[in-house]
């Protein structure tokens, strides 16, 4: 377990999700403390993204309960969870392409954190600065490249004033040095006390931030704890290699 034993931030109990006959999550139990940075790994189709979607409210849980800051949020819509500080980014960036980079971030700043006009403007600039996007703030969002789209996802989530940031493969498809830049940005966030749950396939990138690792497979959490221990856990090895450890 992580060294930070702060108050409990998020608690998921027996969370299950079905799409018709397809059972994507079953009986997921997960608890994290404030200030923690948790990495999630697992093979494709393990239910990682669905887990984030259920946490963020994009999908309703079929079973189980989710509490955030001790408050039951299982039934409240995504927009309100976002107002509470539970903010996610998408695996495939979804910028508002008809708007500029600045407007994309500003719209999140205005509608979260109960800021006034000036404060929202400042929060927008700060988020853009932190993600290194000030120089292209006035570009139309559909004209920027992949790295910038990923950064924009992050900047927009940041402007929403998150307490817990849910990152879905934000490093996917990036080069080594691009991923390194992203890691530095995210480590600035964790230094500010923002808690993070981060799904990533590139484990060594993930481990620069995460002090605790979770491995999911077939809709369940199969290992949870110290990253090295998790990666050498027999079930994890089996999930990845499809066989018994050598």
């Amino acid at each position, binding site marked *: 377990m992580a060294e930070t034993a702060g108050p409990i931030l998020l608690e998921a109990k027996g969370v299950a999700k079905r799409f018709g006959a397809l059972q994507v999550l079953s009986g997921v139990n997960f608890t994290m403390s404030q200030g923690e940075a948790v990495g999630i790994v697992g093979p494709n189709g393990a239910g990682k993204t669905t887990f984030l979607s259920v946490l963020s409210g994009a999908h309703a849980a079929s079973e189980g309960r989710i509490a955030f800051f001790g408050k039951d949020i299982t039934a409240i819509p995504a*927009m309100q969870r976002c107002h509470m500080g539970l903010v996610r980014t998408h695996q495939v960036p979804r910028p508002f392409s008809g708007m500029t980079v600045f407007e994309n971030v500003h719209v999140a700043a205005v509608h979260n954190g109960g800021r006034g006009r000036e404060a929202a403007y400042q929060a927008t600039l700060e988020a853009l600065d932190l993600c290194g996007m000030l120089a292209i703030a006035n570009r139309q969002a559909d004209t920027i490249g992949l790295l910038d789209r990923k950064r924009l996802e992050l900047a927009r989530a940041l402007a929403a004033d998150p307490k817990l940031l849910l990152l879905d493969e934000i490093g996917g498809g990036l080069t080594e040095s691009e991923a390194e830049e992203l890691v530095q940005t995210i480590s600035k966030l964790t230094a500010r006390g923002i808690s993070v749950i981060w799904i990533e396939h590139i484990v060594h990138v993930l481990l620069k931030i995460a002090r605790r690792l979770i491995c999911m497979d077939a809709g369940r959490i199969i290992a949870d704890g110290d990253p090295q221990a998790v990666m050498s856990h027999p079930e994890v090895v089996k999930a990845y290699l499809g066989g018994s450890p050598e």
Partner: protein
Amino acid sequence: MLNQIAQAIVLGGYYALIACGLSFMLSVMRVINLAHGSLLVLGGYFLWYLGENYQVSPFVGLLALVPLLALAGWALQRFLLERSARGGELLPILTTFGLSIVLDNLLFEQFGADTRSLAPYIGDLAWDSFELPGGIFVGQIGVLTLVAAIVLLGGLQLFLSRTGTGKAIRATAEDPDTAGIVGIDARKASAIASAIAVGSIGVASAALGMRATFDAYAGGAQLLFAFEATIIGGAGSLWGTLIGGIVLALAQTAGAAIHPQGFLIGGHLAFILVLFARFLFLPGEFTYRLRRIAGLAK
């Protein structure tokens, strides 16, 4: 010639004004409001009723009409469009079509077949005109309408680009799910957009009644002109709607110059030409899908 162009520009201002609400709804909510013309006429009757029975000037009547229509727009989104949108893209359009039939027939039942006008309640303004250099006269109502169109379209454009609510409306129009995830109340943003779109129809109602006459079934033709102006101007752009209105009026004027009955044909031809040109040459997801249906793109 110059005179005809001046008149056409003024008429174009009227088309832009009646197209404003339709264009706004189409661009930010992706809904073609087929009840637009009927709501326009409903507003006209409201102002006429106030003038006829209480001697209220249409300009004063607008102070009541615009908020009432805005409320109707809010209710339209919350109770009809939001629900029907769950059934696919086509259902909201059919819903507004049904609404237009209901409104037209209710108005006919209530007010009969007589044509009405707001001209009796605005005094000299109904016939006064400005003289431009070169001995060209343009009606004051026409100029007022053109100015109203510019102010309304410009104001809405500013609202969308500058205010937090405007940005929320644009974000919701593009991707309601993501809007929710960044903390925007998508239902509220859509309801506000609908309230603005329908509320703005009130101003067009006043212009309709002041410059001409209307009856219960006058909405269809107004809807057609508004739609043509919107499409010519490039659906989705408010300033484009102003240009579209003027191009439509110029085309109609040119049509009338060629043949006495060519007025409407001229406008329709311009509309169809622009539609085809956009269909064939302009990029964009919508036209791409159309091209695909027509077998012109893979």
